[in-house]
C-alpha cells in the first residue's frame, strides 16, 4: 500500500487507483508514511523549517472539529437535472386536475339534462300515481295499515 502512496505523492496514480488507495487508507488506523514523504521532500528541496509541530497542532485541531459531511460540487448540473425530474410529476398533477374538473362539469350537466327529460316526457298522471304507490310515501303506509 505504501508503494501506491508513494506514487500518489508523486501524482503518478491513475484515478481509479487513487480511489482504491484512499478507501484503504481511511480504513487503516495506523498512520501512513505520507508525513515522512513530505518531510523527505522538504529536506531534499532545502525547504525544511522545523515546523512539524504546527502540522501536528493543525491535525489535532481538525480532529476536534465536527465531521463535515455534504455533497460534492457540480450543484449547477444537479439542480438542472432535479428540475427536469420534477416536470413529469407536475405535468401528471396538472393533467389529473384538468381531467377531474372536466369530469365534474360533465356529470353536473348530465344530471340537469336527465331531470329535464324526465319531467318533459312522462305524463303528470303517471308521476302522481308513482308517488302515491311508492313505499316511501305516507299514503302507502296508511293503505297498508287499513288493509290489515
Amino acid at each position, binding site marked *: 500500500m*505504501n*508503494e501506491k502512496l*508513494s*506514487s*500518489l505523492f*508523486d*501524482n*503518478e*496514480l491513475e*484515478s481509479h487507483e*487513487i*480511489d482504491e488507495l*484512499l478507501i484503504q*487508507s*481511511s480504513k487503516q488506523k495506523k498512520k501512513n*508514511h*505520507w*508525513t*515522512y*514523504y*513530505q*518531510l*523527505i*521532500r522538504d*529536506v*531534499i*528541496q*532545502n*525547504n*525544511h*523549517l*522545523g*515546523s*512539524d*509541530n*504546527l*502540522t*501536528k*497542532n*493543525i*491535525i489535532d*485541531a*481538525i*480532529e476536534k*472539529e465536527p*465531521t*463535515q*459531511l*455534504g*455533497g*460534492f*460540487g*457540480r*450543484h449547477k*448540473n444537479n439542480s*438542472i*437535472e432535479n*428540475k*427536469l425530474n420534477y*416536470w413529469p410529476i407536475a405535468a401528471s398533477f396538472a393533467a389529473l386536475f384538468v381531467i377531474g374538473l372536466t369530469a365534474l362539469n360533465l356529470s353536473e350537466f348530465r344530471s340537469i339534462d336527465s331531470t329535464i327529460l324526465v319531467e318533459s316526457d312522462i305524463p303528470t298522471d303517471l308521476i302522481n300515481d308513482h308517488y302515491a304507490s311508492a313505499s316511501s310515501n305516507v299514503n302507502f303506509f296508511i293503505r297498508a295499515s287499513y288493509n290489515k
Partner: protein
Amino acid sequence: MNTLKMNTLKVLTTDSHVYNVKRNINVEEKLMESRPVNPERAVDQKLVEKAQKGDKKAFGMLVEKYQRRLTRLLSRMVRDQSEIEDIVQDSFIKAYRAINNFRGDSAFYTWLYRIGINTAKNYLVKLGKRPKAMNDVEIEDIENFEDAQDLRNLETPESSMMSSQIITSVNQTIESLPDELKEAISLREMDGLSYEEISDLMNCPVGTVRSRIFRAREAISEKLKPLIETTNKRW
C-alpha cells in the same frame, strides 16, 4: 445565470428541447473530461472529495502537503512566528469548515491561499497592524514564491536544532543508498522529473522507477521514524 434561464425555457417548450438541454450538459461534461488535467490538482480533488465525505485523514494529507507552503506565503505578510502559526492553523480550520463549499472551480491550494490571505488580513486589521510587505500582491505571484529564506529567520533555537538533526539524517541515509535508488529519488525530488522521464533516463521500466523511489523513501523514513517520534514526544 442567463444560460440556466434559457435552458429552463427550452425545457418548458417541447420534448425535443429537453433532449437538447440534456445533450448540452453531456457535451460540457465531455469537454471537461477531455481537458488536460493537472495531476497534482486531480489528486487534491480526490482528497477534497474524501474530506467532504467526512474523511479527516484525507484532509490531514492536504494539511501535510500545504502547511509549509501556506506558512511561507503568510510569512510575507506577518512578522511574528507565533502569529503566523496561529493564522495558518486558523486558515486550515476555516478551510475544513468550508470544505463542502469547495466546488473544484480552482485548484485547492489557490482556494486555501485565499482563505489564508483573508485570515491574515483580518488578523492584522484586528491588531491595527498593516501587512508586512504586500497589500495587493497577485495570488499567482504568491503561488510561485518558493524562497524559504524568510521562514528560516523565523526558526526558534529548538526547531532549528530539530531541523538540523532531520536534515543530517536524511542526507546521510540518501548517501548510504544503493546507486540506483539514490539516482531515482534524486531525479524525482531534486529535478522534479516524472516517472516516465526517469525511466527513459535510467533505461528501465516505469514500474522499476516506481519501486526504486518507494524503496528509497522507505529506507529514509525508517531512519527518520525514531527521530520524529522522540521530537513529537518532546513537543
